[in-house]
């Protein structure tokens, strides 16, 4: 023991140690150099603790997940940041909105870049969320015990579509105006409550200032809040459902029954043990079980960082190369001819050009109900964790049929429709 230091010296020490102490009060662990510290770093850091300390090797295989869920989330983060920045210059007014778009282009530093990032990020999110949904389907990952997380995922997909729909109305250009007109009219075809929904969305009987304000509030407050909550549930359920799905043979089957009966406790199902009963003797299999997990630090975190950097770079490159389109200012008297939605809604637009109810409400509604019901109708536990497993030939074939049908509708709508929505050939 050293003799007590005088108060003055200890104060000086406190001053000199201030940076170190502040740092240590925030980060309790040094950069990890052993397994204990790797664990501590994962579960004492707020941002890391939603991860497991150890993660299964299968979850880190890029060929299995393609990183699509992560990319979706990072695109959402990019959209939140760029969206908040854009809000500093945007006014949801029919007389100002379009001018503000021109201001963003002409007089705001990085205005064009931020709007491009927001637009391409949104398009990317629609595409990647859909691909993520396809990945989960083709690997049979919606099966028990992940049924409910699949339902949350389908809801997230719909929210993503609604986010992008409310978003591209805000510039108040021709696309915006006619998209609101058509979109709210489709809602009006819903049975019983359709007209009320249409009236609530438009805030009146015609598309104007009230409708713009309502879609703005939905886009910047209501939907992001709901989306954030749904994402939180989605992530939490991944942990609670045992991590990402994997094939049954990804883990070795370990039997505890072969344990010598003299010391080790034998675990029987549905029998309660006190803690003492569990720790009395070492399980002889401990240490012999092949461990297919690795520490999240650094394996998972580096993979996530890599995915984020690639995602952000891709959006940046796209935004530097291509400008987000801005159509003519609203002309409520004359729709552009043809008046086309963005590519991801062109399948829908093609369908409503046959029948407003069946194309806009009936068929999409049935498709969503089928998606939501999938894990409760397909109760077989076979074929989980493998892409295009032969055990899931029927389910995958049905799903591919739906996807291809929608892609065909998108292609027809994009390339084969001309003035007055007449059939044209693109060559």
């Amino acid at each position, binding site marked *: 023991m050293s003799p007590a230091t005088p108060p003055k010296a200890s104060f000086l020490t406190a001053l000199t140690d201030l940076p170190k102490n502040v740092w240590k009060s925030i980060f309790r662990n040094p950069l990890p150099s052993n397994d204990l510290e790797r664990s501590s770093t994962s579960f004492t850091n707020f941002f890391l603790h939603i991860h497991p300390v150890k993660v299964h090797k299968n979850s880190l295989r890029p060929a299995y997940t393609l990183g699509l869920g992560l990319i979706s989330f990072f695109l959402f983060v990019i959209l939140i940041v760029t969206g908040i920045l854009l809000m500093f210059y945007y006014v949801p007014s029919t007389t100002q909105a379009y001018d503000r778009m021109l201001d963003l282009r002409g007089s705001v530093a990085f205005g064009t870049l931020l709007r491009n990032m927001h637009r391409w990020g949104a398009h990317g999110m629609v595409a990647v969320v859909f691909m993520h949904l396809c990945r989960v389907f083709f690997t049979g990952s919606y099966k028990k015990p992940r049924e409910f997380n699949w339902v949350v995922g389908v809801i997230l997909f719909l929210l993503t579509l609604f986010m992008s729909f409310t978003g591209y109305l805000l510039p108040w250009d021709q696309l915006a105006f006619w998209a609101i007109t058509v979109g709210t009219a489709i809602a009006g075809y819903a049975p019983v409550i359709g007209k009320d929904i249409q009236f609530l969305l438009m805030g009146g009987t015609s598309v104007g200032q009230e409708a713009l304000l309502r879609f703005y509030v939905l886009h910047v407050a209501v939907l992001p809040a709901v989306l954030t909550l749904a994402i939180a549930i989605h992530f939490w359920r991944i942990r609670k459902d045992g991590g990402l799905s994997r094939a049954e043979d990804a883990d070795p089957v370990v039997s505890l029954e072969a344990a010598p009966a003299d010391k080790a406790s034998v675990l029987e199902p549905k029998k309660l043990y006190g803690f003492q009963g569990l720790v009395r003797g070492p399980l002889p299999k401990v240490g012999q079980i092949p461990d297919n997990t690795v520490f999240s630090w650094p394996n998972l975190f580096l993979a996530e960082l890599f995915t984020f950097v690639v995602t952000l770079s891709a959006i940046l490159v796209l935004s530097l190369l291509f400008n987000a389109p801005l159509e003519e200012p609203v002309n409520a008297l004359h729709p552009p001819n043809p008046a086309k939605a963005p590519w991801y809604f062109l399948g829908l637009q093609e369908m409503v050009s046959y029948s407003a109810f069946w194309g806009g409400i009936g068929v999409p509604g049935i498709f969503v109900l089928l998606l939501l019901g999938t894990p409760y109708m397909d109760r077989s536990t076979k074929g989980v964790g493998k892409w295009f497993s032969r055990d899931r030939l029927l389910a995958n074939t049905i799903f591919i049929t739906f996807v291809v049908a929608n892609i065909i509708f998108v292609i027809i709508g994009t390339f084969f429709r001309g003035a*007055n929505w007449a059939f044209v050939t693109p060559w």
Partner: protein
Amino acid sequence: MAVNLKRSSGEDSDGGKTSRRRMLGWLTGAGLAGSAGLSAVSNFVFIKPRATYGQPQRFSVGKPEDFPSGTRAILAARGICIVREGTKLAAISITCTHLGCTVGAADTGFACPCHGSRFDQDGNVTGGPAPRPLPWFQITLAPNGEIEVDKDIEIVPGSYLSL
């Protein structure tokens, strides 16, 4: 220390009757759920506007002399097309009955640029997804000699105003 894991059955020890505790639980739950429901309803009442701003539905469009015989004048701002044949006058809506786009004049009548609905000169559907013909609006001659159109009143297609 024993932990009671038995679920309460809702019956008191005599059996058969709903206990006071259970009853109070039901009442509390019903009260909370009712309050939440009322709040949700009042929120919907709040966001449903009582008064709306919009174009007047009844307006005059000028004197009959402005529309010589054979005219098919699209008044886009009013959302109507004034048709005059001889002494007969009519106002046909140019809002597509499919999904609300504004139809344009075409050789055979009207055509919609959004989803390809087609109408003949009288607004009858000749093609595309439109479920109904274009409505005709009531058209009258005001005392000051101007043509007055009321978009709140639809009339039977083909009924003209005779001057």
